[in-house]
């Protein structure tokens, strides 16, 4: 089960892992030990480093270090809240500092894992960052006690001010920081963390710490990097996956303004380097390139669909689960329900296109890059440049969107290094055009699903058979995670085991199977990964089964959820907030769905109308979420609202057609993204059960589409079984 719990969080790629292991004595092998050895050192830029997580300046500013990436999801603010809570500092004086992977490596990974995916940014670092804050607090208090020669137990602290009531003395963190930095830290494991019920900073809707420079253009994303002597590169990879460069005519662009030269990048891509990116791109457009398109040039949507369709009934499978005898129960049932669903490839389409700026010298390699996994960036830089890890550095920039695209693969870093090696000592900024970004994504995998159910005479679900046939992310990115022929990742959200991605239903006869049917299209994790598709299949079919049983969709689900109180609680919370069962304005219909992913429980109710000419309007969506502990309710609401836009974009518009072996939709004119006018009113209901740590960035996306499709079904009387909706004639 461990494999699927990682969600879209890839560890460093296997190739990078080898580099890391060899050069760092396994230090980069990741996550095997928690970063509890908090070595102290003095801060370089003023102030004293109390431990790895906390640096205190003389003016009482507490600089809180963060290792995870920020791509809009609010993790930096949330992590700072957790550290500050235990530190007992003044929240108004908190600043964030993102550490680099070079620093992490040099200090034996004192900050732990840096990868940011799988909605893990907070949930898998919360324990050690809180301990980090608590250890620092202990040391600061100890320093004051030693200064005053009083027992530390007589001191109190609030907002970074330490008080000894008996002697009416007080001091501040800034004043004792130098002394505190010299104190031996207590064992972090000996610390008793605060009961979340007593939180004053964590758990509260604090404003984000990283908003101000997003309002006036001063925030520097990696795409904005400017370095002395820098040149810019535009790139075109063979549009057909697996193809190669046959040749190009550099003479045709000789003399174009600003152009330095053409570089062939690996076997499959061509880059033009110029003094500005626009000139590089203009010259690349003018450069005649001949491709060897290879064996995939005849692949199309039709060939891929046929390949997947065969998997729906194939005899052998690649893992799954079963209890009872689903086939027999369905065959013998009073009533049978069957449906085949499909979901397409999807692109991430981060607003900031892929980019990396690289400078390679004889003894140093550097990259400025937006990355969800800076250590994978470091490993890619070292591997591609041949410069040892210890002489590589990654300068982190917050990402203009990530959504799983900028994790372990680091393909754009490999490309940028290959170009930069041709220009020793010169920084090269590689930017992908939007068209390149859409042509060479690691797409959300395509899949189909055959569902069959058996109902008894009373309309009870007695058998359920689910067969997913589709492309495997592990097969493309992480084959080692496939054990024998079993690939459990694709059945995310459908498992029996509790913890991360459990199906919320008990069915007496159940079979869930995965048939791996790979294509030549690169695939990868896409915000929510496989929960999105699996929730469409399961939850839309639950509504079809409920209808066939003549039962209310909520009541039908409820009957299957007796042993799943947390799943049921969020479902009930969403239904209650949305007034499930109560009258709606004429023409408006409701749909409901629930699913689990990233250790969190989600449910949604959609209110939808369908016009006489088949146009859908989503009026309102209520989402309920149990993510265990709530670190910042306002930022969770922001993620839920965003997840609705992300989910509805996929539901209405998302598809990446394959034509002649290549992607046919290359910009937002054809790969449409939902706009503000279509955004429904979103209401977020948090129902935290306070006994686990669940993810937030991804889980709620999964319930958005099925809730809407179920509402459409209610409105039209016809199920929707293929996406996107723009291709479906509803009336």
């Amino acid at each position, binding site marked *: 089960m461990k494999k699927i719990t990682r969600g879209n969080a890839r560890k460093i790629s296997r190739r990078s892992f080898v580099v890391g292991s060899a050069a760092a004595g396994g230090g980069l092998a990741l996550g095997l030990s928690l970063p509890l050895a908090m070595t102290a050192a003095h801060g370089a830029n003023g102030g004293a480093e109390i431990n790895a997580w906390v640096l205190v300046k003389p003016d009482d500013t507490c600089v809180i270090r963060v290792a995870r990436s920020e791509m809009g999801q609010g993790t930096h603010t949330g992590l700072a809240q957790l550290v500050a809570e235990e530190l007992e500092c003044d929240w108004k004086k908190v600043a964030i500092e993102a550490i680099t992977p070079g620093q992490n490596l040099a200090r034996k990974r004192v900050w732990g894992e840096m990868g940011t995916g799988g909605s893990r940014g907070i949930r898998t670092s919360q324990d050690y960052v809180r301990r980090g804050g608590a250890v620092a607090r202990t040391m600061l208090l100890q320093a004051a006690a030693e200064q005053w020669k009083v027992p530390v137990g007589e001191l109190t602290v609030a907002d970074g001010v330490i008080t000894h009531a008996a002697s009416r003395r007080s001091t501040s963190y800034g004043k004792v920081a130098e002394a505190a930095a010299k104190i031996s830290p207590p064992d972090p494991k000996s610390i008793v963390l605060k009961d979340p019920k007593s939180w004053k900073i964590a758990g509260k809707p604090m404003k984000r710490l990283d908003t101000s420079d997003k*309002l006036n253009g001063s925030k520097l*994303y990696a795409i904005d990097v400017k370095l002395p002597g820098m040149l810019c590169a535009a790139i075109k990879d063979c549009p057909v996956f697996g193809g190669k460069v046959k040749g190009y005519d550099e003479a045709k662009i000789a003399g174009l303004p600003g152009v330095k030269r053409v570089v062939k990048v690996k076997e499959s891509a061509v880059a033009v380097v110029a003094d500005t990116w626009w000139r590089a791109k203009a010259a690349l457009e003018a450069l005649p390139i001949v491709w060897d398109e290879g064996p995939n040039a005849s692949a199309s949507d039709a060939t891929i669909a046929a390949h997947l369709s065969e998997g729906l009934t194939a005899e052998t499978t690649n893992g799954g689960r079963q209890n009872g005898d689903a086939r027999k129960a369905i065959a013998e049932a009073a009533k049978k329900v069957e449906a085949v669903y499909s979901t397409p490839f999807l692109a991430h389409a981060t*607003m900031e296109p892929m980019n990396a700026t690289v400078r390679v010298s004889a003894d140093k390699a550097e990259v400025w890059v937006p990355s969800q996994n800076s250590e994978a960036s470091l490993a890619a830089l070292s591997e591609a440049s041949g410069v040892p890890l210890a002489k590589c550095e990654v300068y982190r920039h917050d990402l*203009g969107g990530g959504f799983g695209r900028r994790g372990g693969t680091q393909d754009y870093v490999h490309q940028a290094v290959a170009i930069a090696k041709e220009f020793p000592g010169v920084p090269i900024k590689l930017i992908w055009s939007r068209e390149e970004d859409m042509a060479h994504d690691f797409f959300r995998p395509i899949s189909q699903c055959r569902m069959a159910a058996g109902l008894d005479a009373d309309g009870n679900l007695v058998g359920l058979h689910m067969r997913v046939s589709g492309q495997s992310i592990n097969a493309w990115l992480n084959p080692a995670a496939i054990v024998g022929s079993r690939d459990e990742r694709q059945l995310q959200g459908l498992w029996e085991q509790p913890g991360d991605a459990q199906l919320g239903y008990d069915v007496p006869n159940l079979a869930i199977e995965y048939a791996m049917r790979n294509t030549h299209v690169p695939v990868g994790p896409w915000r929510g990964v496989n929960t999105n598709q699996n929730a469409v299949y399961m939850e839309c079919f639950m509504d079809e089964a409920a209808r066939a049983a003549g039962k209310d969709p909520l009541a039908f689900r409820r009957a299957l959820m007796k042993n799943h109180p947390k799943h049921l609680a969020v479902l009930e919370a969403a239904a209650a907030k949305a007034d499930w069962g109560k009258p709606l304005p004429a023409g408006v219909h409701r749909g409901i769905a629930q699913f689990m992913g990233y250790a969190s429980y989600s449910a949604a109710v959609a209110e939808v109308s369908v016009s006489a000419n088949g146009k859908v309007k989503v009026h309102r969506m209520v989402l309920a979420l149990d993510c265990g502990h709530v670190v910042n309710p306002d*930022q969770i609401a922001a993620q839920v609202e965003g997840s609705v836009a992300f989910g509805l974009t996929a539901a209405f518009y998302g598809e990446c057609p394959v034509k002649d072996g290549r992607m046919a939709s290359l910009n937002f*004119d054809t790969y449409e993204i939902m706009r*503000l006018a279509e955004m429904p009113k979103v209401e*977020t*209901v948090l*129902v935290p059960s306070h006994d686990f740590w669940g993810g937030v960035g991804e889980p709620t996306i999964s319930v958005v589409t099925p809730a809407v499709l179920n509402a459409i079904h209610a409105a039209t009387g016809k199920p929707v079984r293929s996406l996107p909706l723009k291709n479906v004639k509803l009336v």
Partner: protein
Amino acid sequence: MRLNINGKVRDVQAEPDTPLLWVIREHVGLTGTKYGCGVAQCGACSVHLNDEVTRSCSIRVGDVKPTDRIVTIEGLSAASSHPVQKAWAALDVPQCGYCQSGQIMAAAALLKRKPKPTDADIDAAMTNICRCGTYQRIRAAVHMAAGNAVRSGSTAPVNGKSARA
């Protein structure tokens, strides 16, 4: 050629068919204006051209007159003091932030034209893409900047109780 950007006249050396976006970013060095699509779809490159919001990726710099007034996000206000910027801060609108320069420029242009926009006005004017999905807060922040009544933010109630103090 000569451009008036943020009230300052600047000489730039660029081919006339260079998009204004890339002149702003690479020749003038103002990087708050973003590249998102290059085909006037996403609006990340939005600037004001003589007070009208304009997608700078799709304007040739050669078609811009020296007398045209270009305002980028950097020139919208001193110290982020424009009501739109203040409302964006008050409601924590940005997530990744990459599209927000363009969103703010579009909102500021809307309010100049329609100081009290309706929801329909906002629907029609705010057509920029946000991949993080901040649309709900953008709508609320435009209303707030206009001094319209604002729904009480979007903080989620926790177990039925509002978490906002």
